[in-house]
């Protein structure tokens, strides 16, 4: 006998899962579309060679994370099979589920997975994009602690079907943080930690922001901020035009190489050009010290005509 969890909501999909997914919000009847996704435990097909990423003849996708789990994304069904490896750390497995697996699901379902975190400012999604370690989650946390709803972290699922009006489908209000940011925000007690020892590369924590409203419906994208790293001493944004905007977004397509391996070059090009031609793309420079995080949060609130919702909760 096994337990089933859900339904949860993830990017507008109704999710039923064999694995508890505490970061996801409960399904609500107000979510406008109803595509289902089933996440189940099971064995992965034996494909002979062990590969980190493979596409089968049936166009199923196999992802393997050595020491953690294997994931089988079924092309013909709305289903993901997870094969845990030995003493898999459930948080680590969920981390890959919410990252690489979600990105592939986006590609397969016609959404653009942009590497970034997003918060709701003045009714629209402001996306903080950039390479790993550039401070996306930390800045998103600072804004969430001011009361702005967190929409996603790591994968921003963007729908570009409506010309001139890209929409972001919220994933879930949780962030993944490293030790220094956890300490800065004094979030220690609220975090769920990975099993890796503190101070090692695999050590991180995840927390959900239940204090802010959960947004499950799609929201228009207001802007994309590419976090520059290394950054300067001033807090400033500069608008990127034309090919510069295109190249910034192209470089941050989440697991873009997987999308291309799925033969979706054209789809990626259309997503990126649709996004870059309809929302401003900025390069965001700021000092990389946690003590000055407020200045960057202030700039974003001012630029998007919003202000802190929760008094006294500035980062």
């Amino acid at each position, binding site marked *: 006998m096994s337990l089933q969890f859900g339904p949860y909501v993830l990017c507008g999909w109704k999710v039923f899962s064999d694995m508890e997914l505490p970061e996801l919000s409960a399904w609500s009847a107000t979510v406008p579309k109803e595509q289902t996704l089933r996440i189940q435990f099971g064995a992965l097909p034996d494909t002979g060679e062990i590969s980190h990423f493979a596409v089968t003849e049936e166009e199923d996708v196999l992802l393997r994370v050595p020491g953690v789990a294997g994931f089988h994304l079924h092309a013909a069904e709305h289903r993901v099979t997870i094969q845990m490896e030995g003493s898999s750390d459930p948080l680590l497995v969920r981390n890959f589920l919410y990252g690489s697996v979600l990105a592939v699901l986006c590609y397969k379902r016609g959404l653009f997975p942009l590497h970034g975190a997003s918060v709701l400012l003045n009714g629209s999604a402001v996306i903080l994009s950039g390479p790993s370690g550039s401070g996306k989650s930390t800045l998103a946390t600072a804004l969430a602690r001011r009361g702005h709803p967190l929409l996603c972290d790591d994968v921003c699922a963007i729908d570009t079907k409506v010309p001139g009006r890209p929409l972001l489908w919220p994933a879930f209000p949780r962030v993944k943080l490293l030790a220094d940011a956890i300490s800065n925000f004094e979030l220690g007690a609220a975090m769920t930690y990975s099993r890796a020892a503190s101070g090692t590369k695999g050590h991180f924590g995840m927390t959900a922001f239940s204090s802010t409203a959960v947004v499950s419906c799609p929201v228009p994208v207001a802007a994309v901020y590419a976090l520059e790293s290394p950054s300067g001493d001033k807090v400033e944004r500069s608008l990127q*035009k*034309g*090919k510069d*905007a*295109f190249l910034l977004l192209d470089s941050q397509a989440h697991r873009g190489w997987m999308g*291309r391996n799925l033969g979706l*070059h*054209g789809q990626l*090009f*259309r997503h990126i*050009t*649709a996004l*870059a*031609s309809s929302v401003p793309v900025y390069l965001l420079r700021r000092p990389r010290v946690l003590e000055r995080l407020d200045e960057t949060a202030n700039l974003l609130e001012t630029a998007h005509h919003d202000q802190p919702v929760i008094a006294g909760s500035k980062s």
Partner: protein
Amino acid sequence: MNSRYYVPMNDNSVIVRADGWLTAWIDNDLMMMHAESNFYLNLSGSGGRIWELLEHPCTVPDLCNALASEFDIQPETVRPEVLAFLDQLFLRKAIDVDPPILA
């Protein structure tokens, strides 16, 4: 100014867009990607305008006359730049010449 042809064509050759290119304007840049090779091109300034003019197959004199009229300059003034630009497009397989002429 150099106005000789590098691409194997002459003033009577008809230039056509090659198949398989996806294009989109972002601000004043025309982004292009070849659907099979995943090769990107970016045409800025009058380059994007030349691509637009190539929507209908035309000759080099046609292109030069159209651009000269739009920018209020003499056709012979734009010719060297047009030829150099077509050379770049041809090298990257973005245009074909009909009929091809052996160099």
